[in-house]
């Protein structure tokens, strides 16, 4: 059923939550600045609650079922995170309070900086970036400023493998870097010959996603980094796929210079229907002076009687501030809670089970769906969503049909180097029965593609809406509700 908008539900004169009358003498606002009309809805609190409850029921979510969306790490979001991040001691703290009154927040940030640095093998971490994409922007700015600081202004080329996320080239381009695509070899690794050819004194760096978006750990990672470093470039690590490596491998140990995390992927903080994310950036020692301003540090060591005093430090060659205040603190509390509950043992267990689940699914599906890079995968893998004998069936049709079976589809049409890609990331929190059910459905859909292809073409059948007309949305742009307006 179609749910009316809040504007359709509005009835003039109806009131929701009200506030006390002023307890101070009232004065008039200068007439010239007063608005004439305030066209926002008028509804009762219960009507609003029913409206949003009803909207929620039109969503699919991790809490409802399996969400194997490749590169998004849709793992379970522990409920305890929602409790700790809402503690009044965290939620009701103004960012401009005197530092003596925010020692809890600063301690947590300081510890989280250290935890993340330790997990990935780096010297320091900024928690400021608001999302992975902003982490990338921060990291590439650090690389650019590092070269500029050394007088290497000609280093303007950023190498980006063809399997990379679209944000990699977009982030670099925002900073005026020249994007040079780097091909993959037949095993899905960085093509070393092509890399060597592109490494000269114009090289700013290489953006490496490892495991890459095919779910493959680069077999030559040590060599790749060596080549870039020898040419004077820096290596940026896209940490979107860190879930495969927790407690197993530290990107910093092999010389990655900068790395961003996605706390909303790897560290279980909720995706929230598209945000908020959090994209901390870790750096090696030589890049510490370039971190965003401020970072949290100990400003007074304290002694036996006195606890250390946490505060803000200002890196000397900082790239500057990338957002207001210090980061998505509420998200940081959730990640801190998660890491505290996992410890080294639990982190390694998470990565191992994520990789086990992915390889199990890959093994079960690869006979029915083409697996273009057939080797042990990490936490995700990519299949082709097409068959030669049924050329009309596309990855999109398979994705939509999965919805009829109450599964969220895998990421489709990415990475671009696999035709009709279906990118599957089960995560570690799914049990074997769920994986087996998913396999059964995927095999059944492959069969339906032959016996009743129209079922796929018309899918989904029993969702709140059927396939939407995206051309109409783009042609007859309607981005704002006009209901109730003159």
């Amino acid at each position, binding site marked *: 059923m179609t749910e009316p908008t809040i504007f359709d539900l509005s009835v003039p004169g109806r009131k929701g939550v009200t506030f006390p009358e002023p307890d101070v003498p009232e004065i008039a606002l200068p007439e010239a600045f007063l608005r004439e009309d305030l066209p926002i809805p008028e509804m009762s609190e219960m009507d609003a609650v029913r409206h949003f409850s009803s909207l929620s029921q039109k969503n699919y979510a991790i809490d409802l079922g399996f969400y194997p969306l490749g590169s998004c790490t849709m793992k379970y979001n522990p409920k305890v995170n929602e409790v700790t991040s809402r503690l009044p001691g965290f939620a009701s703290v103004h960012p401009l309070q005197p530092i003596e009154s925010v020692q809890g927040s600063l301690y947590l940030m300081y510890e989280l900086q250290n935890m993340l640095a330790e997990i990935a093998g780096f010297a320091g971490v900024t928690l400021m970036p608001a999302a992975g994409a902003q982490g990338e922007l921060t990291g590439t700015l650090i690389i650019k400023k590092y070269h500029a600081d050394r007088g290497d202004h000609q280093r303007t080329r950023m190498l980006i493998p063809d399997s990379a996320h679209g944000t990699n080239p977009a982030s670099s381009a925002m900073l005026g870097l020249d994007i040079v695509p780097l091909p993959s070899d037949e095993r899905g690794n960085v093509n070393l010959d092509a890399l060597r050819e592109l490494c000269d004194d114009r090289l700013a760096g290489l953006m490496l996603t490892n495991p890459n978006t095919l779910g493959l750990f680069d077999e030559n990672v040590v060599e790749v980094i060596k080549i870039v470093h020898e040419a004077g470039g820096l290596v940026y690590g896209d940490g979107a796929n860190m879930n495969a490596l927790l407690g197993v491998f530290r990107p910093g140990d092999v010389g990655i210079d900068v790395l961003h995390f996605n706390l909303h992927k790897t560290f279980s903080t909720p995706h929230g229907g598209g945000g908020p994310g959090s994209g901390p950036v870790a750096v090696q020692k030589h890049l510490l002076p370039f971190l965003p301003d401020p970072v949290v540090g100990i400003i007074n060591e304290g002694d036996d009687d006195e606890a250390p005093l946490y505060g803000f430090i200002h890196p000397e060659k900082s790239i500057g501030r990338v957002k207001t205040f210090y980061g998505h603190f509420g998200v940081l509390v959730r990640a801190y809670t998660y890491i505290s509950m996992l410890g080294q043992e639990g982190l390694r267990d998470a990565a191992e089970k994520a990789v086990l689940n992915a390889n199990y699914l890959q093994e079960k599906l690869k006979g029915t769906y083409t697996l273009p890079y057939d080797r042990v995968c990490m936490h995700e893998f990519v299949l082709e969503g097409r068959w030669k004998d049924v050329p009309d069936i596309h990855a999109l049709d398979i994705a939509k049909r999965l919805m009829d079976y109450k599964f969220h589809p895998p990421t489709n049409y990415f990475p671009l180097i696999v035709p009709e890609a279906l990118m599957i990331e089960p995560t570690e929190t799914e049990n074997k029965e769920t994986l087996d059910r998913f396999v059964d459905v995927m095999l059944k859909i492959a069969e339906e593609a032959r016996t009743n292809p129209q079922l796929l073409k018309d899918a989904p059948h029993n969702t709140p809406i059927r396939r939407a007309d*995206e*051309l109409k949305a*783009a*042609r007859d742009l309607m981005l704002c509700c006009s209901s109730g307006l003159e």
Partner: protein
Amino acid sequence: MLVPQEIKYQKTDEWVKIVNGVATIGITDYAQDALSDVVFVEFAIDPDDEVSAGDSLATIESVKAAAEVVFPVSGKVLEVNQTVIDTPETLNSSPYEEGWLVKVQVADESEMDSLLDAAAYDAYCKER
């Protein structure tokens, strides 16, 4: 797929036709088909701009894709086609006629020599 004989092409799917030193430039039938329904054309230049071959001309957006259009020849921009701004779908219905993008006063007609003729472009498209 339509590949008119009398005009020249480049591998990035632009066509160009010169009459009296004025080049008319657009995208090919192959390009509009690959993009599918065009919803927006954003020009990267204004009339009177001096441009070189290889410079960005426009971005064409469909529902699911975006394509960069680059100048096949150098010169001075005389006119951009308001029709494709107002009704972007013209690029789908008439890529070689009403759907042209810009007219350019060509600086050096010999640049045309490095472009593909219809047969070569046709063969190139069939390989893809």
